[in-house]
């Protein structure tokens, strides 16, 4: 019952409260997270594969878990509405996918620029043209530099945990930035898996606007934001410097999020078999496929470690640099054509010819384990380390 929920500390809810296993879809995991997040208001607009999660959030509103909820007129308007609601000093939630993300694009830097801890779920999918509603995560590449925190969930469990934890990270006074929680659509949203949930009579403490580093837009919190020379239109050094320093402060706030991500999420990445000389580095469902590929390779006597990157912004560049210091090969499978994760990793480490971007699948294609296995074997052949048993077409990006 909505009225019977008890507010608890994030640490207790995330780390200590007993958990019960349920078998639910990723969309249902979103609703389970929102149910425990003490969200004041959510705004929804339909797009596949996001819609079901926001239907369920609507049900939560009808049950009294949220104080307001409505369907907006398009994604730009929805992101603007949650921006307005957040300016008013409450906790908000929304979600979108692919073309919806692009339609709303103008609002994401606005969220970051106004230092609002909005949490938005992105159920990633193809963007036109050619049209595709199927899973891929090219939209994440387009959001890398809008100023928001970005977390990439591997599965429904991650999705549940990351949405809840995103509030705890984003609302820290020294951070106070928007957070996007991303999953590869359908693979996570429309499949069932075992998810461990804390009791639903617990919820996060309410958002406290008095802890915000910027004044709430409510005429209760002095002072108002006022500038003698509007930054937008003045062409002088002071305006440029003020604008630039604000950008720097947003970037610095994202850096300060690292310690909170470590505290609540256990780190910006997870590493399996850190002593391995070959790594698969991935985020999202490419991590799950990498796990399967690692099993296949192990059976063939090839030892491969795993780097699961959970935080895309801030990016764990130093952690990746440290864990790959001794590595000969880092293969980066991705669900998009651009290879944004490989670029990020290449930009983070020395001797980045060790990084092989691929395999890359998109347009709804799945990522068979063999593609990843072949990528590693072919890379080993090129480096002269090992011959593959059955050479196939090179799929490296």
């Amino acid at each position, binding site marked *: 019952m909505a009225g019977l929920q008890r507010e608890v500390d994030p640490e207790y809810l995330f780390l200590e409260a007993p958990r019960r296993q349920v078998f639910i879809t990723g969309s249902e995991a979103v609703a389970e997270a929102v149910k425990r997040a003490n969200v*004041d*208001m959510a*705004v929804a607009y339909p797009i596949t594969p996001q819609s079901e999660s926001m239907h369920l959030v609507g049900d939560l509103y009808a049950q009294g878990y949220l*104080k*307001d909820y*409505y369907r*907006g*007129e*398009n994604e*730009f*308007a*929805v992101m*603007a*509405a*949650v*921006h*307005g*609601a*957040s*300016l*008013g*000093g*409450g906790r*908000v939630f929304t979600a979108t996918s692919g073309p919806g993300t692009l339609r709303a694009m*103008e*609002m994401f830097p*606005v969220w970051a620029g*106004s230092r609002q801890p909005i949490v938005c779920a992105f159920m990633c999918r193809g963007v036109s043209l050619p049209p595709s509603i199927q899973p891929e995560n090219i939209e994440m590449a387009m959001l890398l530099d809008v100023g928001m925190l970005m977390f990439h969930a591997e599965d429904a469990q991650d999705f549940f945990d990351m949405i809840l934890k995103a509030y705890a990270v984003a609302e820290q006074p020294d951070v106070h930035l928007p957070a996007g929680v991303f999953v590869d659509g359908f693979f996570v949203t429309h499949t069932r898996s075992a998810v461990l949930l804390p009791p639903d009579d617990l919820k996060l403490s309410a958002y406290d606007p008095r802890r915000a580093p910027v004044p709430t*837009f*409510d*005429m*209760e*919190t*002095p*002072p*108002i*934001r*006022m*500038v*003698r*020379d*509007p930054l*937008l*239109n*003045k062409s002088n050094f002071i305006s440029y410097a003020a604008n630039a320093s604000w950008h720097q402060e947003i970037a610095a706030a994202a850096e300060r999020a690292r310690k909170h991500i470590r505290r609540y999420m256990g780190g910006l990445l997870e590493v399996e078999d850190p002593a391995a000389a070959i790594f698969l580095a991935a985020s999202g469902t490419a991590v799950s496929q990498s796990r399967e590929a690692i099993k296949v390779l192990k059976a063939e006597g090839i030892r491969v470690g795993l780097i699961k990157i959970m935080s895309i912004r801030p990016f764990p560049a130093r952690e990746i640099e440290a864990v790959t210091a001794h590595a000969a090969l880092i293969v980066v499978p991705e669900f998009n054509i651009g290879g944004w994760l490989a670029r990020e990793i290449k930009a983070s480490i020395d001797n980045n010819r060790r990084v092989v971007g691929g395999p890359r699948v998109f347009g709804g294609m799945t990522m068979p384990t063999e593609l990843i296995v072949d990528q590693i074997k072919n890379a080993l052949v090129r480096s002269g380390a090992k011959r593959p048993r059955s050479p196939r077409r090179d799929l490296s990006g």
Partner: protein
Amino acid sequence: MSTKIITPVAQFAELLPQEYKDLVAHGPYHERRSVRDLGTFKEIVDEHPHCAGCGVALAVRLLAAALPSPADTLIVGTPGCSFFSLVQTALNYSNTAFGNQNAVAAGLKRMLEIRFPRVHKDVVVVAGDGGIADIGLDLTLHSWFRREKITTVMLDNEVYANTGGQESGMSRQGRVLNMAPRGKLFPKIPVFELAKVSGCVYGARVTVAGPYKVGRAVRNAVLLARELGPTYVQVYTPCPTNMKFPPDQTLRVAKEAEKDHYSFEEFMSAEAAEYLTRLKATSEESEKAPELAKP
């Protein structure tokens, strides 16, 4: 509300230009004001960046004076000329992206109703014709369809003024403007008429040549939006820079428009009319109407 809403940093307070000191000391917050009181308080910093004779700057001054409770009013706007003066008043103003203003205002109003259920927090959109009628038209209309309890004020200078005088949907047909090199090919978008059929409980079409009409319209619109639903005020704010008339002719241009295509018009629902009658009966004059407590 907070009456200390403008609080200069103590170490810099002495360095503030006198007009800013005046804004802090004599901003329009501490007692009820009206258009009649213009000149007795500091509604806008004199060195605002508007062009001489700007109709928008005048409309913002009238608006600042007419708000029924400025100490509990949040203004939402867009980039553009209206931005210049709104940041030079003692009003609390937020400017985000272009065209999103009615959606931002809707979200803000709903959150303020959640957080302050027993206090009226007035949310007023103040934006130009481009923001409301062109790029933001769907958001404008949908806020009305949804019956959001916000006021929308269009400062209609019939042109994209800040970007250099381009045709807007509110420009007059035939007018030669940038991006309309052969003259505008279609009439003004009938936003005022759309407001009537889209859920607004009150609407007024006024020009800056009628300051009391502007004041009354803004006050009625804000008071009615608190109780009944969306309201709309469309103010003609002539632009001497882009319409190429001398800056001392703004009021004459506005007066001529009032006789021509910008006649005064007001509409209200039966409920709104009843509310205003009740309001008038409980005060000596409508300009000094006390705020009605929420039931």
